[in-house]
């Protein structure tokens, strides 16, 4: 029986295994180094960074939902400079690949971030979070408009040779349209999904439970929507697809591989059980070995 080879290529980015920690659920790595073996995960996607630090939203920022979590963190982050000076040095020492998630309100912001990261040693890829409001377009997220998504992708593509992964928003009528647009604009891969836009109600107070009314839904509840979008997008583009959304076990991850994902990210599950990603890797290896399969890609449904 062959030992499975878990290494996967996401365009020019090579991962030792197909499991990454999702942005916003693993800080900048060091925060969970005592609870998770960061040499064992394929990659770490750092908390999204912006050019300037952002304080985030007023509380309440989180609320539990059926099989899920609603968050309105508000993209709180230390900003690019502090990331480069204080976070990246520690993050790059782990064996996991370092993927830096970037966010902005104009394509120029994304480009400025990508350019600085391009020159910074230790960064293996950028993940472009286009679920942010496009300030020039009245606040609709970049990721809801193919032209805006392509503009951000092009701006980043022009200034870096790092692998560029564009992270898609699920809150759209046709996610394949956005995926094709960013592929044409030069993305090396796409990752999906980001959170679903949702809301919870504080019944006692008779008002929204989150300070910002709406928040992003994640966790097992969203897995069926995420799987559907991974299936659709992996059949619509030629670039690799990274699947995200409700993965809490090896079985969940394997389902995403069947649906067409080349790799997966574990998000909310890390908040609940930090060791989840490492268990997922072990489970994928055991599953492939037990069936005499040699690689994650063998699972993909034709």
């Amino acid at each position, binding site marked *: 029986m062959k030992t499975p080879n878990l290494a996967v290529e996401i365009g020019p980015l090579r991962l030792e295994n197909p499991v990454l920690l999702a942005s*916003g*659920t*693993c*800080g900048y790595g060091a*925060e*969970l180094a*005592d*609870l998770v073996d960061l040499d064992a995960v394929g990659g770490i996607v750092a*908390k999204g960074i912006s050019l300037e630090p952002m*304080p*985030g*939203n*007023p*509380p*309440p*920022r*989180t*609320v*539990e*939902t*059926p*099989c*899920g*979590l609603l*968050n309105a*963190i508000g993209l*709180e982050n230390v900003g690019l400079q502090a990331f480069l000076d204080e976070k990246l040095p520690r993050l790059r020492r782990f064996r996991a690949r370092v993927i830096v998630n970037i966010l902005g309100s104009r394509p120029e912001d994304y480009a400025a971030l990508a350019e600085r990261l391009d020159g910074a040693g230790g960064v293996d890829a950028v993940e472009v979070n286009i679920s942010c409001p496009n300030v020039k377009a009245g606040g609709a997220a970049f990721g809801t408009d193919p032209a805006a998504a392509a503009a951000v992708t092009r701006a980043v593509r022009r200034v870096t040779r790092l692998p560029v992964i564009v992270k898609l928003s699920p809150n759209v009528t046709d996610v394949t349209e956005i995926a094709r647009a960013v592929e044409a604009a030069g993305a090396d891969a796409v990752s999906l999904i980001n959170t679903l836009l949702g809301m919870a109600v504080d019944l006692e107070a008779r008002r929204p439970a989150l300070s910002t009314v709406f928040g992003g839904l994640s*966790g*097992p509840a969203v897995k069926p929507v995420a799987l559907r979008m991974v299936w659709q997008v992996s059949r619509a583009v030629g670039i690799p697809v990274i699947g995200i959304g409700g993965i*809490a*076990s090896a079985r969940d991850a394997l389902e995403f591989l069947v649906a067409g994902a080349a790799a997966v990210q574990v998000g*909310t599950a*890390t*908040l*609940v*059980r*930090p*060791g989840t990603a490492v268990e997922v890797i072990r489970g994928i290896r055991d599953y492939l070995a037990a069936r005499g399969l040699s690689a994650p890609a063998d699972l993909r449904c034709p």
Partner: protein
Amino acid sequence: MTVAAPARFDLDAPVLDHRPVAPGIHELTVEAPGVAAAARPGQFCMLAPAAADARDPLLRRPLSIHRVADGGRVVFLYRVVGRGTALLAARRPGDLVRVLGPLGRGFTPGAGPAVLVGGGMGIAPLLFLAERLPAGHGHAVVLGARTAAELPGLDRFEAAGHRLLVATEDGSLGEKGLVTGILEGLLEEAAGGDGPALFACGPWPMLRAVREAAAAKRLPLQVSLETRMACGVGLCLGCAVPRPSGEGYHHVCREGPVFDAEAVSWEAPPP
């Protein structure tokens, strides 16, 4: 301040004991030696019933460490409020509970006398602090609840060896009224000396009242704050409370739950 990262553990801990100690209030004892050894008063753990595929409720629940005891025992004192605590309350000896901890920054008592002030379930972490403070050093413990039946574990507080003062809103035990009444009296007694350091945990209105009393007498005060916590381990950034400066937020699960009163924004709505 740089401190070596304290040890945190994530384990399936066997339940050793689990009993109701007051109407709707339970005392849970688990075996978690690493947690017990590393725990400091004021820290908390994130708990959930151990069930491999459990997805709803999704999140663990934060509970203060009430006390630790020989044999790696960690004890929690909690009220059943909603689904999470109800499911925990159903765990029997031999069952497993997933425990992640010890978490957060606890109380840092100084050299002088301390006054511990607790209300409602805020008394939970104060027992641990009381048991770690040596008796005969002029420490005092002030506890309040609505009624006598909701003051579980008083015998252990007594056994800690400090002056113990109790207030109940209905007068069924100790003084009739709130802890702040007792506190005022205590602080009057201590007037003229250096004054004690205060450590408070309880409902937001109680914390505000204690803070006013402390500020009036320029006494140092540490408060334990409560917010909704999705992760409890510093990853989600959800546990934000505003800084007094208006610039940004503290995160209760990693910079707290214990804060110097001066680092807290007292104008903000209750967390």
